[in-house]
């Protein structure tokens, strides 16, 4: 069984984001970038399936600027077998929309014919939570989003999903697309020998143009601003004072 894992290079989750002065986007130049945390969970899950003998090959793919190669090396160091880089932008501030990403990934899936695509549930930059579902639609595959547990038996993926009221369990025929939530696993750290080994693994570079996919954005960014700040509050001295303030505000 072959698993395809799409990964995205995003601002490291520990970095405080700043809006650019011209309001065009968030500042990404000279900012620490990392693999999207949810995608890292997807890579980890794929590797675990390989270690259990369920999967035979793990292929990772990313779409973005040339520097996105970094996150492919991270995935290879974790244990993925080979990688595909699709260059689709020159400027790190160009965010390729989920629809265009899904169209490119559909082309990759047609060529690679994976049995399972494991993706992160959303990228922590645009927070769109869309690519996996869109890819499912384009390929005509079943989908299960926000997975917190995954079991593969006889061509069926049994997925436990995080939903509003609790958990939902669904069976999806393979080939299937599953998107990963935080509690699915805890990704490993790549060891130094594995980081060295990853440098020798296959990384094929191609471009969006080669797939003949139109990646023109459908959404135009009008502006990007900081959220409205809350007015400063006050520190109260005691539980009694707190109760009095809450009565005064009419909320208790």
């Amino acid at each position: 069984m072959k698993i395809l894992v799409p990964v995205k290079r995003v601002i490291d989750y520990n970095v405080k984001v700043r809006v650019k002065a011209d309001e065009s986007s968030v500042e990404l130049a000279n900012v620490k970038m990392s693999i999207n945390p949810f995608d890292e969970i997807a890579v980890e899950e794929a590797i675990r399936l390989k270690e259990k003998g369920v999967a035979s090959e793990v292929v990772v793919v990313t779409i973005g600027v040339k520097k996105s190669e970094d996150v492919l090396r991270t995935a290879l160091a974790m244990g993925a077998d080979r990688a595909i880089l699709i260059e689709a932008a020159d400027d790190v501030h160009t965010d390729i929309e989920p629809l265009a990403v899904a169209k490119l990934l559909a082309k990759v899936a047609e060529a690679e014919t994976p049995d399972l695509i494991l993706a992160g549930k959303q990228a922590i930059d645009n927070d769109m939570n869309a690519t996996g579902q869109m890819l499912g639609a384009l390929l005509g595959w079943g989908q299960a989003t926000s997975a917190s547990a995954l079991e593969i038996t006889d061509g069926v993926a049994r997925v436990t999903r995080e939903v509003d009221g609790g958990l939902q369990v669904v069976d999806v025929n393979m080939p299937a697309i599953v998107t990963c939530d935080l509690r699915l696993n805890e990704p490993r750290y790549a060891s130094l020998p594995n980081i060295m080994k990853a440098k020798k693994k296959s990384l094929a570079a191609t471009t969006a143009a080669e797939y003949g996919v139109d990646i023109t954005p459908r959404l135009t960014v009008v502006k990007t601003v900081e959220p409205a700040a809350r007015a400063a509050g006050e520190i109260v001295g005691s539980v009694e004072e707190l109760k009095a303030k809450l009565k005064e505000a009419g909320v208790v």
Partner: protein
Amino acid sequence: MSVLLVAEISGSQISIDATSKALAAVSSLGPVTILAAGEGVDPAPLAALAGVDKVLHVEGADYGHQMPEAYAKLLQSLAPNYTHIAAPATTSAKASFPRLAALLDVMVITDVIAVDSADTFQRPIYAGNAIQTVTSTDAIKVMTIRTAGFDAVADGGAASIEVIDAAEAVDSSRWVEDRVVTSDRPELTSAGVVVSGGRGVGSEESFAIISALADTLGGAVGASRAAVDSGFAANDMQVGQTGKVVAPDLYIACGISGAIQHLAGMKDSKVIVAINSDSEAPIFQVADYGLVADLFDAVPALTEQLK
């Protein structure tokens, strides 16, 4: 212009609050038709919402289980009649709407917090650390609404109800079971009061003092990601970017430091109270009222005072 609003329904259960708030968000865009898809649904409460033009009622077990493949297919067949297709940003719509958008070859716009015009919308990015305004060039706008910032519409409507046929079945996936946590407390996302505990609560047992305060105020119990990861609280109680987004009248954060990801889920609450022993905790920067105290003393004392 015309809008198709998909009501949030699980089984036969309509979430009127979420649907009504989403209705408030989209009603400026044109006449609104509400889709009631589920299993054993009584669509009358939806027809009674003020300003609804029509209700479409369709029955199907896959809709009741919110299966995204079936939902997307149904919506695809209805789409040509509308300029906008919207739903509250629940886990159900989050699963089905991007799928629908791809079937229609349009870009989805998720977690809309403001409708500026028929094609321009605001949505949070980077866990709410920035707000982006986007204009869509697509013929049909497919969008989910983050309902926390909208007020529910009143009753007083008398829309007609039309029964429609289910779309062709999709067999790529099957529902197995729901593991739903049942509670007498109000639902987290629509509660007027939310009391949340963080890592400072220290254990699952100690969460009882958080629950006791919530029960005294008739509120819901929430938790920070740190509390969930530490095993003190269930994941469906998680408030934050990776959990639920809430905007109650009163939010009481107990032993929560105020990580960016938590603030993204509650900073639109009307009144925020923070109780934390660390006076430097970032939660105090967003709190209307801060109390620097040991939560094990302060929370039971507050509960006692409010009884």
